């Protein structure tokens, strides 16, 4: 018999493992929980999404009563058309791929912002606000200064990072010093940032001359992300952003798993008491984690302003910060997982746009599918039960209640 204790002799609390234990340590890969389960989660989400599409079609719903056969045919056709358009819009042409990559870039960066938080036990729902502030910082550098591109672009990117980092550091500080839960404070700061941007866009410093609607001045060409394949066809929008996003993901991987500060991030995430005992400065770490996360989100905002849009508009980041939560979970909070999930979500977004343009199904369904993906991902037991997959039982625990 082994020397192990029975569960009853171990203290009753479940171990506070790190968020997704199997990937955070030294890189052990369990293909079941890291590939198979996410794949099945996506499949399940698409199936439920199809049902939701079917329910949203009122005319066909009426048809069910008179002629179920036809109704079934129409429903299948609607769903097939929608998903077909979605797929085509994501991967069906060079332009589709260009769109997918363009949309993936900020998603990856914002996803990293959430993932870094998860690794350190913090739930950063504030990516949207951090993106807005980071984007505005980049915007100011982008239109206010006239520098050679070799200086202008890097400075603008750094400004985006700093803006996001400052906005992110606030909830980190509040959490560490007062115990205010970051979920509430980051959400509230999202609303505050949104209003702040609305206000900024109406003052002369930001507003485009001669306009009464809230649109900012344009970023100078020297601070714009160069487009990558516009020489083939100027319609292809994909720009340097995707390259930067992937490079940043590699950097985040190094930071988390190879550096001392990453070790501290993960330790404070897995066991804050243990981190404190080990001499780590938990207050400083919470601030550092949230500032890093905020900075990454700021880069995502910068990607929008310096890359895709070239200027600021009200709420110019849309719901990227919320999609980022789903994709961080899908990517199991691992930087490379986030890249993969970001590409998928970029595809969903680009495809969703095309779907909305060519069929009767609106793009909001993409957000529903993403939420469904998290439901299935967050409860691996659910997927295991549905598909009878055998894998290590695990539960996701990042939060420990309100107290610090």
């Amino acid at each position, binding site marked *: 018999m082994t020397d192990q204790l*029975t569960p009853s002799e171990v203290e009753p609390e479940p*171990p506070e493992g790190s968020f997704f234990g199997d990937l955070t*340590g030294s890189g052990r890969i369990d293909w079941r929980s890291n590939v198979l389960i996410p794949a099945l989660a996506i499949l399940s989400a698409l199936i439920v999404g199809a049902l939701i599409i079917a329910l949203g079609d009122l005319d066909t719903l009426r048809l069910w009563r008179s002629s179920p056969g036809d109704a079934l045919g129409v429903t299948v056709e609607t769903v097939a058309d929608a998903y077909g358009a979605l797929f085509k819009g994501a991967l069906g042409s060079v332009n589709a791929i260009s769109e997918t990559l363009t949309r993936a870039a900020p998603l990856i960066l914002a996803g990293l912002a959430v993932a870094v938080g998860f690794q350190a036990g913090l739930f950063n729902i504030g990516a949207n606000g951090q993106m807005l502030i980071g984007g505005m910082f980049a915007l100011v550098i982008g239109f206010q200064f006239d520098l050679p591109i070799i200086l202008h672009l890097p400075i603008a990117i750094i400004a985006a990072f700093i803006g996001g980092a400052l906005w992110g550091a606030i909830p980190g500080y509040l959490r560490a010093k007062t115990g205010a839960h970051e979920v509430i404070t980051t959400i509230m700061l999202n609303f505050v940032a949104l209003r702040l941007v609305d206000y900024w866009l109406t003052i002369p410093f930001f507003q485009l001359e001669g306009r009464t609607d809230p649109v900012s001045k344009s970023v100078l060409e020297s601070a714009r992300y160069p487009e990558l394949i516009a020489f083939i066809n100027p319609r292809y929008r994909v720009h340097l952003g995707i390259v930067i996003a992937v490079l940043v993901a590699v950097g985040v991987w190094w930071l988390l798993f190879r550096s001392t500060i990453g070790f501290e991030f993960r330790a404070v995430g897995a066991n804050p008491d243990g981190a404190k005992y080990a001499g780590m400065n938990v207050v400083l770490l919470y601030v550092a984690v949230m500032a890093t996360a905020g900075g990454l989100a700021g880069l995502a905002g910068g990607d929008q302003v310096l890359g895709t849009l070239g200027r600021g508009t009200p709420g110019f980041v849309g719901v990227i910060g919320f999609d980022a939560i789903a994709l961080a979970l899908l990517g199991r909070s691992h930087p490379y997982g986030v890249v993969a999930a970001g590409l998928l979500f970029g595809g969903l977004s680009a495809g969703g746009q095309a779907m909305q343009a060519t069929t009767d199904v609106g793009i909001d369904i993409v957000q529903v599918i993403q939420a469904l993906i998290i439901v299935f991902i967050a409860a691996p037991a659910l997927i295991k039960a549905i598909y009878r997959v055998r894998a290590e039982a695990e539960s996701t625990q990042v939060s420990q209640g309100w107290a610090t």
Partner: protein
Amino acid sequence: MKLELKGITKRFPGVVANDHVDLEIETGEILCLLGENGAGKSTLMNILYGLYSADEGEILIDGEVQHFAGPGDAIAAGIGMVHQHFMLVPVFTVAENVVLGVEPTTTGGVLDINEAREDVRQISNQYNLAVDPDAVIEDLPVGIQQRVEIIKVLFRDAEILVFDEPTAVLTPQEVDEFFKIIDKLKDDGKGIIFITHKLKEVLEVADRIAVLRRGAVVGSADPATATESGLAEMMVGRPVDLKVDKSEADPKDVVLSVKNLTVTNLFGGTAVDDVSFEVRRNEIVGIAGVQGNGQTELVEALTGLREIAAGTVIIKGEDHTNSTPRQIHDSGVAHVPEDRQRSGLVLGFSLTENFVLDSYYQKPFSDGIKMDWKRSRSEAERLIEEFDVRTPSSEIPASNLSGGNQQKVIVAREFGRQVDLVIASQPTRGIDVGSIEFIHERIIEERDAGAAVLIVSTELDEVMALSDRILVMFDGKVVAETKPSETTNTELGLYMAGAS
């Protein structure tokens, strides 16, 4: 009433916790179930109480097979349990705790708290328990909390009462009181199952003794004829030396000097009250006391984890009052924390990561920026070897190890480098005898190598065995200082209860 367990078997992944256990008890007797930590006692009792279901075997009452789907069924069948960690809601009153689950109500489910109060008072008087029904649990000392648990069980008309390690938290005097209570319960016709790993107590109260080792009943004994060493051998499976071997202390220069230390707790109360003492090289100082008398806060203050309100802490001649945990670590202090799972380890981390947990920022584990995982791993493997940590590899998460091996990981990390001061809090709580012996030996080796050692333990026997000098804490103050050769458990018990 007669209770029988027949062929009870329970398996957990990788371990057989109970292996065809047979036991029986009748009302009016005290059965002692003896076994060391991890022997499967608690698992067995949880099966009896309906918290686990057995893989094999059956429970019979007066010859009838019982099926317990939950504690409710066991309670209805007349079984009551006083758990090692009390199952009381800290913010509720005594009366509320006692009636929880079987509440007296008036119309519409409205609580009839007066009736509950009256019932508590009546049981309390019958057994001389002196418990106030309106007291809030978290304000009560552990000894009284245990009586609340007893009232709770009696309120449910239990015939067989199970006590899981009931004496672990009590002073020697409280233990005596407790024995009187269970004797009275026996005389009233209750059956008692008394689970413990303490040999002396078994001989004192048992009518019959059953010994559990590695999940199986390995023998029984008659308390009239059994000896402590005989029971110990049966419990561990080999002859056990009950004494810790150590030479006479030869204290040298002062390493830790604490002067007028005052520490407040979270709610603004005084946890440590004007405490002064010294610890010298080549000396082990033990702090005894009932849990919750300021030991936790004292250790946290000494190791930089809690702010000091007044007084000074001097380590090796340098002022370390309110230094950070890292400054104290770097000045050559090893700290074995009270709760290994809460603060000593990061359970989700690999052993390698846990071994470098408090020195990762230094060479050879890193250059301050980049971790050297290769070097960390070879160091981890060296410590695993040297400290006899039973693990398949250095890369599995710490959560996969047994309590004893987890504790060895912490001890290895803390003692694996040159230290001048060892602060160890509850160094052997809840672990097996083999690991206890090993850790005790390492602590004495540290002393003999020239370290000053401060041990905090609520296990009086441990303090008596290891210490060269003993301080007793009560209500935040050091109320006595003595030596093991000059005192007895009884005398220490009086100090622990506040006599001075």
